[in-house]
Structure formats: C-alpha cells, structure tokens
C-alpha cells in the first residue's frame, strides 16, 4: 500500500487563457519618494473583463495608467521592471507613444468631453489617424454611438455641444470616442464612479456587450459591480498584487485571507 503523500504538490493556480494580452514583470512605480507599486507581476487575459480591485491608495489607478503610459507626464514619475503588450515592452519598445495609445485606449474616472459638438467628440481621436470622407464620418459617428447605446438619445442633435449631455451620457460618449480609435485594449479607470446609478448600469451592460471583442481592464472600488461583470479579478493592496484569478475562484475560494475579507467585507488591513 502506497502511503498517501501528506503534501501534495499543487501547481500554482493560473487561469488558463489562450493568450495573455498584457503582463507585467517586477513592475515598480515611484512618485518622487513614494513607492506606489511594488514588484507587480500580473497577467491580463485577452478578451473579457478583468477587474482590478483594492482599497483606495492601493495603486490600482497607477497600474492601469502605467499600461498606456499616461503616467509619464506626472511630475516625479519613475518606473522599473516591465509591462509587455503583444510581446513588446511598453516602456522600451515604443518610441512613439501615439502608436501605443491607438492600441490601448483609456477612459477616465471623470467624463471629459471636449467643448465641441457631439460628433466632433466621437471623431476626435480617429480623425487624426487618417483622412475621413464625409460618409466615413457619418458611419463612424453612428457606429460608435450605437456601440455605446447613445445613438437613440443623441442622433437628432449630433451638432449640439457635448457639454450639454448628462454626466452619464458624457461618459458613454467618452467610451464611444475611445472605441472609434479601434484599440485592442480598453483601460477604464472607475468609469462609473462619477455618474448616476442608472447610467452606471448602462455602462456595465455596455462593457458586457463589448467584452467579446475587447480586452477590458477595469479599475473599480465597487465590489458589487465586480461580482456582476468581472471574468477575472486582480486584487491589489498597498502596491502589491495579493491575488489574481478568475472570478469564481477569487470570490468563492480565495487563497489569501486578505482577499476573502476584502471581497466579502470590502475591508482590508494593509
């Protein structure tokens, strides 16, 4: 009789996805003297929604802002380690940031429309990349406004100023504007935090619709939201990745006590 081994070697559970779209290796960020991210090793699966959760100040915004290098402009920003996207290092292989940013689009916490018309806002990024004919413009505007379910609400007033929209509509317009550039990855930094609950739900449904075509990385502090829409969860605490995995595992059977406490009580001792 062979004794059952007391210790069984369990392989570190890694969700099995066909491809990794973005992953980081020992990625560190400092703002002046403050060490914000500490040896981050994360892998974001392609397609689907990955929610990055964690208490405020845990560095979740900093992490996604580092992916398309929006942080570069912040005074005192310093990074070490690497973030790879499609096998290329974001920090060394992209001389021209605009190329990186056409592939990785971003939507910010506060909706920020430009003081121009609604259709000009939709076309704002894409019109720079190539010459658009009148017909193309119309198609692009309609297509992307439909994608964010805004078309019905604004189709009759595309030339109105975008600032006349409600905050929730503005945020959806921001998403449409980002989609128009045709990125491969969508970064969203708490996109529902500053809009009303109804618009928040609308945005969630929109993301669920988009997830089959896009890799969506969503920073949120709303755990209900995470449970509703996430496929994959990364839990950050105090600048370190505590745990990552698919939703079912993270919610029902997390490895770390901290993850368990945070995901059930939204409380964290770190």
């Amino acid at each position: 009789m062979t004794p059952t081994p007391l210790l069984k070697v369990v392989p570190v559970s890694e969700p099995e996805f066909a491809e990794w779209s973005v992953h980081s290796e020992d990625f560190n960020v400092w703002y002046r003297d403050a060490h914000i991210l500490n040896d981050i090793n994360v892998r974001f699966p392609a397609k689907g929604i990955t929610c990055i959760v964690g208490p405020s100040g845990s560095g979740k915004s900093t992490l996604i802002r580092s992916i398309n290098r929006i942080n570069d402009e912040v005074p005192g920003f310093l990074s070490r380690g690497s973030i790879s996207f499609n096998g290329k290092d974001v920090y060394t292989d992209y001389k021209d940031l605009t190329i990186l940013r056409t592939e990785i689009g971003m939507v910010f916490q506060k909706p920020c429309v430009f003081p121009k018309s609604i259709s000009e806002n939709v076309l704002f990024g894409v019109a720079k990349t190539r010459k658009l004919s009148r017909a193309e413009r119309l198609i692009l505007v309609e297509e992307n406004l439909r994608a964010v379910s805004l078309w019905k609400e604004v189709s009759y007033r595309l030339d109105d100023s975008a600032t006349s929209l409600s905050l929730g509509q503005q945020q959806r317009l921001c998403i449409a504007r980002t989609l128009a550039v045709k990125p491969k990855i969508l970064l969203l930094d708490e996109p529902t935090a500053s809009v009303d609950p109804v618009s928040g739900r609308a945005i969630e449904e929109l993301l669920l619709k988009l997830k089959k075509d896009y890799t969506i990385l969503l920073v949120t502090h709303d755990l209900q939201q995470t449970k509703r829409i996430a496929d994959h969860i990364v839990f950050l605490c105090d600048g370190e990745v505590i745990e990552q995995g698919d939703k079912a595992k993270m919610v029902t059977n997390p490895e770390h006590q901290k993850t368990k406490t945070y995901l059930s009580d939204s409380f964290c001792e770190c």
Partner: protein
Amino acid sequence: MRISRLYIAGSAIVSAIIVLLIFVTLIVNSSAAVAANGFHLFTYEWNPAKDQFGVLPMIFGSGAVTIIALCLAVPIGLMAAIFTSEILNPMWRAPVKSVLEILAGIPSIIYGLIGIAFFSVWVGDLFDLQSGRTILTAGLLLAIMILPTIITLCDDALHNVPQKYRETAAGLALYKYEIVKDVLLPIAKADINGAVLLALGRALGETMAVMLVIGSIDRVPEPFYNALSAGQTITSKLGREVAESAFGSVHFSALIFMSLLLVAITVSLTSLTQFYFKQEQRLVE
C-alpha cells in the same frame, strides 16, 4: 464707527475722483484744439508755427510700432509659453516665471538706453541707413519689452486648462502638438486674447524707450510700409513736446487731444481685457 466709515467711503471716493479728474482734465484741456481745428486735427501736417496740428502721423506711428511689436512678440511669446507650460519639467516652471517677472520689471528707460546703444546701431548698420532710429527699431524694442508679459500670461492661460483634457487627449493617441493645437489653445483662447490685448495696451502706452529710438519725425513714411524710416508715436510726441509748448496754447491743447485719444484707446483695451479674465470668487465655506 462713524469716523471709520467716513475713512473707508472717503478713500473710495478719492480713488474714484482721481480717475474722473484725469479724464475731465484731459477733455477740458483738449477742447481748445478741437475748437480751433475741428476735423483738421485728422490731417497729415503738424507744424505749430503755421498752426497746423494734424495728428495722423502720430496715430500711424503708434499703430505701426505696435503692429510690428505684436507680430514679433505674440508668436515667439506664445511658442515660449507652450514650452514653459507643456514641455518644460514642471519643477522649472516657478523659477522661469520669477525670472520673467524680473525681466518685465526692467524700467523702460533702461530699455531705451539699450535701444540707443545697440538696437539703433544694429539696424543702422544692417540696412545701411544714415540713422538707425526708425519705426522698425522702436517696434523691435517694444516687442522685447512686451515679451515677458505675453509669455507669463499665455503660460498661465495654458496652465489653467485642467490636466484631465491633456490626459484624455493623450489617451486618444494625440501627439503633443495636436493636444496643444486642438485642445489646449481652443480652451485657453479667451485668456490668450486677454493677454494679447493687455500687451497691446502696454505697447501703445510705452513712452520712454520708443521716444529714444524712433527718430521723432512727424510724418508718415513714403511709402507707408517703409518701416526703415524715422517716425513718431503719440507717446514719443508727448514726451518730447509737452514740456516745450506753452500751457494754454493751441499747440499744448493739440498735444492733450492726442493724449486723450491714447487714453481712450488704452482704457477701453484694459476694460475689455477685464471681461476676458475670469473674476475671482470669494470662498464660501
């Protein structure tokens, strides 16, 4: 309590009276020239000996030097402001602004001295002129004088555009120049216009530096776009002749009339500027 109110109301009234007094004095003293010459004030001949007081050459001169100054200073100043606000490491912004403020504080008479000692000599040598004291020299000197004002105010205007616009535009894969051209400049436009108007007012009112380098000849150059000939601005005319003319004479009055024109223009410019800059609100907590 009553004395205190008297003091505060009194000082406000004194301030108001000062402004009104200046206008009234100028209007009263220019009336003699208007009465004697009427519309002949707006002709090209200025010759006190023949009782001719045409102010057009001076108006032309003021306009010409101001246009030259703005054409040089606005593009350079705006580009430099874009550098200090958008490209330069923010750490350096405060020291650069302090230096600009100091530069703006150099008294105009010192600019005049530098104009005489260097600029007029250079312009004279470069274009092989008998005298380097020309409209172009004055315009050049003025451009340098208003440059710090334009840079500081345009830098403020750009800097006041919230950071979120820059990040959003960068997130949409725009280049820096597209962000500046298509996002920041349109948003900061009102403040930049205000800055240019303010600089315009300064340039029109500048006296000492212009007076020393413009050559002081009361005629419109032939042809009028020949900036390499001597000219006269309203301010340089005033600076040179007010002390020489007899108080109460038509000559004196004609000078005051020009001064009134100048004040009317600069005051309306500065009031206009006020509408461009936003008013500060009291903090209510």
